[in-house]
């Protein structure tokens, strides 16, 4: 089954069958990639860690496909899985603590947060508005915020010249997203 067909199966099926197909297909090459290129030989339990990183990268990919944030593949499916897994490993090393696959803790709010109901409404609206962004912006934001890819990987996947260029474009996409959901018009403070 091709990667495109697998992506379609994931989008259209709510069960785990398609996910298991991908798991079986890419488990071995991804684990080999991680053992060969990412996890250094000194790491303890590196084989178990590689399997866990692959599992988590697949879960992240599935979530993004099913939520509609990732609709088009610009590279092979294993390229995404390898890149997400590699980034998860880097993040784990940066945290210098036990493995934690849940989202990063957010920093303290700058001001009194909006109500829970309003926040949920904003979340729903943002997810809706992301679909109205052009495909390139949607991919860029999804890769950064939901797949948690680093800038070098995003630049490579989306064909930007370098990481800095990808980052600059992300800021432009955020301006468009904010405009779409009505937070900020193009004004400048004095």
């Amino acid at each position, binding site marked *: 089954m091709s990667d495109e067909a697998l992506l379609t199966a994931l989008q259209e099926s709510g069960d785990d069958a398609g996910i298991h197909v991908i798991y079986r297909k890419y488990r071995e090459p991804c684990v080999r990639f991680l053992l060969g290129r990412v996890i250094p030989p000194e790491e303890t339990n590196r*084989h178990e860690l590689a399997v866990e990183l692959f599992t988590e990268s697949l879960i992240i990919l599935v979530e993004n496909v099913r939520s509609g944030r990732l609709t088009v593949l610009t590279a092979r499916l294993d390229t995404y899985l390898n890149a997400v897994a590699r980034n998860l490993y880097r993040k784990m090393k940066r945290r210098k603590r036990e493995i934690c696959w849940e*989202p990063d803790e957010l920093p303290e709010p700058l001001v009194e947060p909006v109500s829970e109901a309003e926040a949920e409404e904003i979340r729903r609206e943002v997810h809706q508005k992301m679909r109205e962004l052009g495909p390139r912006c949607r991919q860029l934001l999804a890769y950064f915020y939901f797949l948690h890819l680093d800038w*070098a990987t995003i630049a490579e996947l989306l064909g930007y010249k370098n990481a800095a260029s990808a980052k600059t474009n992300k800021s432009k996409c955020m301006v468009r997203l*904010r405009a779409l959901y009505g*937070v900020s018009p193009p004004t400048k*403070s004095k």
Partner: protein
Amino acid sequence: MILPADLPDDWAAEIEAYYAGELSPESERDLRDRLNGDPALAAAAAQHEALYRRGLQPERPTLVERERLRESLRSLERELPPVAVKANEPPRRMRLWLAIAASLLLPVLLWLFLARPDPNAGLMADHFFWLPRQDALLGPDEERDGRTLYDVRDYEAAYPSLRDSVAAGSLDSVNLLYAGVAAIGSGHPAEAREMLTNLLDTGRYPLEEDAIRYYLALAELMLGQDTAAEAQLRAMTGQDPELSVRADRLLQKLREGEGES
């Protein structure tokens, strides 16, 4: 009443930087002070913050589903045989290759030693390794070409095949990396240097930059350009932990060599 839309762009950019972890403590304090001093803008900022705190976060039911899926995949994993770590993966592969290389090269090295050998030959033998190709091992239906020759380490045949396929446009230019490795492995450092330098100059493969520089360093060493080799190793970004360890060891060896000479 001030609407969320009244939040100025540069304030929004500061909030974006804050959530990206890129705002200095001083700038953060300044931003907080400004927001505290303007309740209307603070209200607009609260809505803007919600974009980062909720809008760009997975929805809560996802976390429950994530745990369920994790369990489902762990169950599947228990049913599958362990991923075979074949001899062509670095730790075991390196040991195997070093053992084979040592047994095969021992007479040659002895001869070279007696004939005042190139001091970098030993470094090369110790630091050259087969770079796993990212798309390798994907199954029997893979097209047989320079890539598969590379995968089975037929360097002498792989290097011109990969080079020519890239030149003809039938393979992506990233394969120049493997062509370079194969060229080094088959004793063609000048060709390796040219291909790897061209690849590096494209700037298209930031993820492979460390690998390109590492093998460029090996090619420079083979050509007796120790200073250029050191420069490549020092320019590595450190994004690949395994290559960083290898580069550090090679740099250490080069420094020891300098000390001795």
